[in-house]
């Protein structure tokens, strides 16, 4: 029995919000529990991120400032004026390599419902800079729950006719509700089927993701393809060679805006936290630790190999 969202915690201050009421009607059998502040429910140390993944609760809350964040140098290379925002915390997918497991005390999904406050802040920064690249799926996969909450569509409508590129990084396939809009960037994370099966629990299969990519291309979008993280599974060269060949057999690389790729890496503190909770072989591989980052000892060799398989289009190594 799937118990996801069998419990919905709602901040008292947003209980009468029309968007909240609309969401609640979708979960008729759920226990609705009033809370004072989402942090009372989300922050306590005595929760198990791992156990909660078996039956995630939903927390509906109001976010307080800051509403947008500047991104690191590493990401800024992709686009100027890169910012990210967090309309949601956590994700319904359960990827073994995900840093969120080491970042948050809870895996419950927090959805911030005060869209206007986010928009006001973005508007201010945008007016000042003239253009923006804004990711709204940095701490979540927003498209994974689009059918339930419609958050990406709300943001897509907000950026219409503005010089704001809106990045939707995703493993999901819920793209039907989007008509062509030149400033929406779909960035599809793809992995070999063996990696999806073993490490990307609850995510759509590779073929479904390829189908979604074809759909958005047919609508006129130029999606980004993301091969990150590359996982060194047994026989990884054979696995990734077949995988990347399959991708570009099915998708014409000329229809792709760019490729983002990188090997598995993680902040060593987060790595240790996750290792204590999650039984996954990813956390038992003999990595090297440099400057507080856990990564493959032969990272350069893996990257070189992957690069040899990629078509000649715009690429970003992360």
């Amino acid at each position: 029995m799937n118990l996801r969202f069998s419990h919905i915690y709602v901040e008292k201050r947003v209980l009468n919000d029309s968007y909240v009421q609309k969401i609640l009607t979708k979960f008729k059998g759920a226990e609705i529990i009033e809370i004072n502040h989402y942090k009372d429910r989300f922050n306590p140390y005595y929760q198990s991120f791992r156990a909660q993944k078996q039956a995630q609760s939903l927390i509906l809350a109001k976010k307080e400032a800051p509403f947008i964040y500047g991104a690191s140098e590493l990401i800024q290379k992709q686009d100027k004026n890169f910012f990210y925002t967090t309309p949601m915390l956590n994700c319904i997918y359960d990827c073994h390599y995900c840093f969120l497991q080491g970042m948050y005390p809870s895996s419950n999904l927090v959805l911030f419902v005060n869209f206007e406050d986010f928009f006001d802040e973005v508007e201010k920064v945008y007016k000042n800079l003239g253009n923006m690249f804004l990711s709204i799926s940095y701490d979540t996969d927003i498209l994974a729950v689009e059918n339930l909450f419609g958050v990406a569509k709300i943001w897509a409508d907000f950026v219409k006719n503005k010089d704001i590129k809106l990045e939707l990084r995703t493993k999901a396939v819920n793209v039907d509700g989007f008509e062509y809009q030149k400033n929406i960037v779909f960035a599809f994370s793809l992995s070999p089927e063996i990696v999806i099966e073993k490490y990307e629990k609850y995510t759509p299969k590779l073929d479904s993701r390829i189908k979604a990519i074809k759909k958005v291309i047919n609508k006129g979008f130029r999606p980004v393809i993301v091969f990150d993280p590359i996982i060194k599974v047994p026989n990884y060269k054979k696995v990734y060679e077949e995988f990347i060949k399959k991708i570009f057999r099915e998708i014409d690389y000329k229809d792709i805006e760019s490729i983002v790729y990188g090997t598995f890496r993680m902040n060593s503190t987060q790595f240790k936290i996750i290792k204590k909770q999650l039984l996954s072989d990813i956390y038992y591989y003999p990595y090297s630790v440099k400057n507080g980052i856990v990564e493959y000892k032969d990272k350069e060799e893996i990257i070189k190999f992957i690069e040899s398989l990629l078509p000649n289009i715009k690429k970003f190594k992360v």
Partner: protein
Amino acid sequence: MTGIVCAYFKEAKLLIEYFGLKKRNDKFSIYENEKISLIISNQGRLNSAIATTYLLSTRKISNIINFGIAGSSEFEIGEIFLVNKINNKFFPDILISHPFRESEIICFDEVVESGNYKLVDMESEGFFKAAIKFLKSHQIHLIKIVSDNLVCFRPSDEFMNNLITPHLKNIENYINSLKEPKHFDLKVVEDLAKKYDLSFSQKEQLKNRVMYYLLNNLELPDIDFKKSERKNDFRRIMNEFKI
């Protein structure tokens, strides 16, 4: 093992009989079998916290339940509830399906005889605050049966019998559905560490390697060479685990 904390013997008596628990000679009144350990705490949040701490400090308990009666101005006498919020600030995580209704509870230091409350008791907060020092919130459970509509009274054995007996089967099913943590058998690491006199750090590295093998369903290498120098032996062992 599942722990149960009851404030009064009257609340515990039917559980003790139902589960066939035997009294232990201990500092507290404790009744046990191989799966359940029940402690009587006496009234109030402090007593509940002390008893909970004692039980969790002296037994290997993976789930703990505070079972007892509660007052309510809203619910009917005899209704049973699983608690999902205590005093507006503590949240037991309910991650499994169950046959009970759910409710919040307010924990007071005095008997409550007026007001509008879904559930009130005198132990829940103390129990929960003690339990979170040992367990995660999905391993902490509170099951309460409404005994009165905010009226102070002394329940008879017959009253308690009528109140609790109809729910015993559901309580048993609930306890049976609680998960025990999964453990991997790492005896092979212990055996190799002992045989080749491995250091703590070497043992940890070996443990990682063995876990990688177990989680990939790979067959563990059969290692049985003659012991020589620790460093060389360790290198030889690790070479057997190819990644």
